[in-house]
């Protein structure tokens, strides 16, 4: 029995070692170090810096773009908060979706209801282009969380993490919130609930309070006692905003773990043109990808079978690809073509291990 146990431990170790040796050999293949092609340049990119500037640009565009008359419509698959009024360059799809679902049933389930599908089609088109990279690169609320994480680092505090058991339980919260945002408006449309419970998720979402702050708007920071529904939702919203601010300070991408938009994305992620792939045979299960993952997604390191490795919690920040030392073990495909992959060269450059020329 104990021999079998030892064998079970030994086999993956041997397999990893064999992969590692194979990769060592491939690393010296001349075509991999030859010349600086565009592909090589992208693979060697300083992802942290690229992401910082990309996120900042997206933040400025979405949070202030409206002031420059930029309008990207109201079906964006990211938290471009509609409560940011005139300054927003587009509106998060969850706001119009909740409005549309709150139509009277007679209207919703008639030809007029086709407009819901119209809005959804636009959302889907936006989403299919970038998949969940909307979360990792564009979402203003995600960017704010990254900035708060940067602040924590400056204080020299360690970040928090969930145990496997906590992770397993908490991951379902985003689906519960998704159900709330879909079904509460339907109940309103069916006249089973008051309109005061309208746009329930927006009332709970910290983006409603946080994003307008960047335009000096504090009008959402209140509790509305005008009706029971409003009072419950706005009180919860303010409490969640407090949790968001403290949670983001303690835990990387604290809110993304509970985000219903993330759950909504995941439903359609298989259709996207933008895919995160894993070549299990090239993975040594070193765990680097897991350690850098803000969302603590374990299968990114453990799963050597699945090719399409995108998980529901993933925000496609691509930190795992950048941190992977194995040639081609993780890659990003767009329309079946690899645009960014893990390379030894890129890893060495990012880790500062390159020999000076």
């Amino acid at each position, binding site marked *: 029995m104990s021999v079998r146990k030892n064998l079970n431990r030994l086999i993956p170790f041997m397999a990893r070692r064999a992969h590692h040796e194979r990769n060592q050999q491939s690393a010296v293949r001349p075509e991999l170090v030859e010349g600086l092609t565009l592909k090589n340049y992208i693979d060697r990119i300083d992802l942290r810096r690229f992401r910082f500037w990309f996120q900042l640009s997206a933040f400025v565009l979405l949070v202030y773009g409206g002031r420059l008359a930029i*309008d990207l*419509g*109201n079906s964006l698959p990211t938290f471009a908060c509609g409560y940011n009024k005139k300054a927003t360059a587009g509106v998060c799809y969850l706001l*119009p979706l909740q*409005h*549309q679902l709150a139509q*009277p049933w007679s*209207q919703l389930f008639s*030809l*007029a209801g086709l*407009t819901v599908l119209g809005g959804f089609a636009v959302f889907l088109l936006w989403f299919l282009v970038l998949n969940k990279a909307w979360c990792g690169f564009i979402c203003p609320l995600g960017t704010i969380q990254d900035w708060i994480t940067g602040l924590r680092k400056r204080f020299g505090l360690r970040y*928090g993490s969930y145990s496997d058991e906590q992770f397993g339980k908490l991951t379902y919260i985003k689906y519960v919130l998704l159900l709330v945002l879909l079904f509460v408006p339907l109940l309103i449309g069916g*006249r089973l*609930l*008051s*309109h*005061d419970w309208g746009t329930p998720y927006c009332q709970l979402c910290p983006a409603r*309070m946080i994003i307008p702050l960047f335009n000096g708007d*504090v009008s959402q*920071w*209140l*509790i*509305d*006692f*005008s*009706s*029971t*529904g*409003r*009072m419950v939702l*706005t*009180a919860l919203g*303010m*409490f*969640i*905003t*407090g*949790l*968001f*601010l*403290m*949670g983001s300070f*303690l835990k990387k991408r604290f809110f993304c773990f509970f985000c219903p938009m993330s759950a909504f994305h995941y439903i359609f992620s298989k259709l996207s043109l933008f895919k995160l792939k894993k070549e299990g045979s090239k993975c040594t299960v070193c765990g680097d990808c897991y350690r850098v993952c803000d969302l603590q997604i374990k299968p990114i390191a453990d799963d050597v079978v699945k090719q399409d490795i995108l998980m529901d919690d993933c925000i496609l920040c691509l930190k795992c690809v950048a941190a992977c030392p194995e040639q081609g073990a993780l890659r990003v495909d767009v329309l079946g073509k690899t645009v960014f992959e893990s390379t030894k060269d890129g890893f060495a450059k990012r880790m500062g291990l390159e020999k000076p020329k």
Partner: protein
Amino acid sequence: MYKPAAMTLLCAAISIPLSAEAGLWLSDQPPDKSLMRDMKRSHGGYVLIEDDVYVKQLWLRKGDSLTGSAYAEPAGASFSLLDTRRQLSEPAVGRGNGAATIRFKMPEEGYYNAYYTERAVENGVLNVATAKAEILKHNCRLGHNYDRKLVEPGRWQDAPLEIVRLRLPDEDFHTRIRSGNLLKFSVQHQGQPVRGATVRLETQKGWINTAFSDENGIASFQVIQDTFPVDDDDGARFLSKPQAGEQSEKRGDEEKEGRPGKWAGQKDGLQSEGGKPSKWQAKKDGDEHAEHKGDHGERKEDGGNSRWGGERREDHFLVSAEYLSDEAGAWEGQAYRQIHYSTAMTGSYAPNIQVSQSKSLGLIYASAGMLTLGVGATVYRRRRIKPFKEVGFDER
């Protein structure tokens, strides 16, 4: 046709207090309330939806108040409709339940203006009464990239007398007039401002204010705050009682059975001494609101959508203007020596939402959230720290 300068001069001298004669106005509440079951509440009030196109129906009413006006039959006069492209047309007039009604489609977004003008000579004075309704067509499903010029009010160049509500700063299709807003009305005669016209605004609850149009024909009113938070037993403040919908439904049933509603007769929900509404009075005020809704804007008939409350509740106002002009002539063979112009239109306003909002409590709740998680995480981390325990090995 009058020259503007002459017009303002003329009216300054001859403005008169509001006469006892009842005015005409247009209402979107049918005399038979059961008709409202098929209607949907939209941004521009109650509409019917036919082939996915909004259809508005208006009824002619006669009287100087929202609550006491009777439905009226037209006396040989015509309706006009100004659409969003400022094109004038004459909608067909229907009759039923002792009231004249017009129906028109609103296919495009923007403001539609409906007019009804009636002329009659009485005691040597030609009374020219114009009822006006300004109706917004907006559907959020069509998006919000509309031309902002559509928010601007339309004007009928040939109107004998017209009230034009000037827009609030940054007004859009979602803007609601609220208590505390300064409303400006331009009084115009055939497109020209009228100075010195008597303008009267009456709210659904009976508050009346009178002003005179200035040299630009503008009269201003600050919308009164006549809705106050209601304290419930737990000390929470609501703009309507939590179960207002149910009460409204109950009252509606009582009315159907021919009995007076439970809240009937509670009409004096005024302020207590010192200006602060007492709990009892405030509740009474909320009930009064329900009472008035029965006559104009009753949620019960909102396609059964009776549970609207809180900041969504709204009251109506009736604004009217009139002036007397020393013009002599004849109308349908009857000579007159003066013309009395009058006009009226309705609007709606919502409570000032700030009276039921608390920023300080919001901050307390947010702080509570931060504190809960901060303390919770700190305690959790501390509990996970295990004291150092030396482990010794017996190497023998």
